[in-house]
């Protein structure tokens, strides 16, 4: 059975083509722009459009993640670091471009040469789509018992990858804490506490009582939404990771409106550090419990001792898988939410120094004796 691009049968293909062209245009703009702020804004835009394209490609989970991460967290960190660094990049002399250009063109030609032998776009019979990928679709409901196949693969079949991914976030949080500290300086010096973020911004916000009130209502809602995304991940798009990012963004919004020191009092950096490692511990702990019950690492069928598993799951089975996935998703959420918040504290806590010292060198506090 051949697949011959029935464009009309699948309107998302047309939609996707348009989005791709948009992506290419945005990227061109990034290549030529030298203003860092413009580049960052365009990068945020790029990821949002990419998220749309993912939806067109039937990948809502990826789209969700890309939107919250690329459009949210990445852009935020980039903006924060521009605040801490400089505004525009030096121009690149053409002579410096020769070698990279050759390398890039060579690599591009190589890929295109290979792409020629890849089965056509959208081909359901391609090796990628016909082998393991299809197996998951056929087996998930029987073996794991949840409708969202992406969640099932993510949390169960390839749960070990996801443990790794959580560890990466943990490691990044550790790294940023090492490099930039825990934002302690925002707390340490009362005189500067108020300037924790861009002083102009803080001043502006003070006039906006409406904004403060609105934020006070918004943040619980965001928390609620985060929890919804977490627990809804089995059924629809979403999951622990997206939930964690949303929770972190809620905290960041709080910090933007009420000042970093307020947020750090409510959610201390030490708690974030604990949360980041607790998340990984929960995840790995589930795996260890599985091993103790006689299964392989992360084999949630062994989350409960076999008799209890029988009792809990009834005829359909999969109680272990359900609870296991929820448990590890909670772990992921904990690590991601705390980790990203800690990263944000690190960057934001650095701001007063830079602001007060201008281009001079900052003091040594991240390390050294």
């Amino acid at each position, binding site marked *: 059975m051949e697949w011959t691009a029935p464009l009309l049968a699948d309107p998302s293909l047309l939609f996707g083509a348009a989005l*791709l062209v948009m992506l290419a245009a945005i990227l061109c703009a990034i290549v030529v722009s030298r203003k860092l702020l413009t580049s960052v804004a365009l990068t945020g835009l790029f990821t949002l459009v990419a998220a749309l394209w993912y939806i067109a490609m039937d990948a809502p989970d990826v789209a969700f993640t890309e939107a919250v991460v690329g459009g949210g967290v990445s852009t935020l960190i980039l903006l924060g670091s521009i605040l801490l660094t400089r505004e525009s990049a030096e121009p690149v002399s053409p002579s410096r471009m020769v070698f990279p250009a050759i390398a890039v063109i060579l690599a591009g030609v190589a890929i295109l040469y290979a792409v020629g032998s890849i089965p056509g776009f959208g081909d359901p019979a391609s090796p990628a789509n016909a082998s393991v990928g299809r197996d998951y679709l056929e087996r998930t409901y029987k073996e794991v018992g949840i409708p969202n196949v992406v969640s099932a693969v993510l949390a169960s079949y390839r749960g070990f990858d996801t443990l790794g991914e959580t560890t990466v976030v943990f490691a990044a949080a550790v790294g940023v804490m090492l490099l930039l500290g825990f934002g302690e300086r925002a707390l340490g010096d009362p005189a500067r506490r108020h300037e924790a973020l861009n002083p102009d911004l803080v001043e502006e916000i003070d006039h906006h009582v409406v904004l403060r009130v609105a934020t006070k209502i918004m943040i619980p809602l965001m928390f609620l939404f985060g929890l919804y995304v977490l627990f809804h991940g089995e059924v629809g798009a979403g999951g622990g990771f997206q939930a964690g990012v949303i929770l972190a963004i809620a905290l960041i919004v709080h910090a933007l409106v009420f000042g970093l020191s307020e947020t750090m009092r409510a959610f201390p950096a030490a708690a974030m550090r604990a949360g980041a490692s607790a998340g990984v511990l929960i995840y790995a702990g589930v795996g260890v419990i599985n091993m103790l019950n006689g299964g392989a690492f992360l084999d949630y069928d062994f989350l409960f001792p076999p008799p209890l598993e029988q009792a809990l799951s009834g005829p359909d089975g999969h109680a272990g898988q359900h609870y296991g996935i929820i448990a590890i998703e909670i772990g992921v959420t904990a690590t991601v939410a705390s980790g990203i918040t800690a990263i944000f504290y690190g960057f934001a806590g650095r701001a007063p120094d830079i602001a007060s010292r201008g281009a001079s060198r900052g003091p040594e506090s991240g390390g050294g004796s």
Partner: protein
Amino acid sequence: MIDALATGYVYAIIVAMMMASLFVLLTTGNLIRKMIGLSLFQTTAGLFYIALSKVGGGTAPIIIDAESAVGQARAARLDPAYVEHFGVDGVVYGNPLPHVLILTAIVVGVATLSVGLAIAVRVREAYGDTELDAVRRADAAASEPEPPGPRGRPNA
């Protein structure tokens, strides 16, 4: 040939974008811009994977009942033989595996980005600039007179 163009354009555009972001990354001397390039490069690799996962006429890989309204509507647009052959229980789905991989890759990307930017901030604090050229000049100037004592930062 036409077929190849009709389906291959996706990969062509993605590869072009991939290479453009790599180009930004390799040429610029600005740390922040380098991180932007790196982040875009990773995103475009994600686009490539997701392009692989597309199944014509498919839907998101969240199991739905073929008898439900949504399922019926989905199936109605496709050749029944096609659905029979490539669908699972009467519905054609996208390939979930690349989605999972790219979810992971996105997370890895943001982790790298934050660590990279944190280092960039420290570079700026230590050298007063985020251009690699300026950093190089400062290092060259520092190593020129060969001070006999510790060569750490002046205010360390």
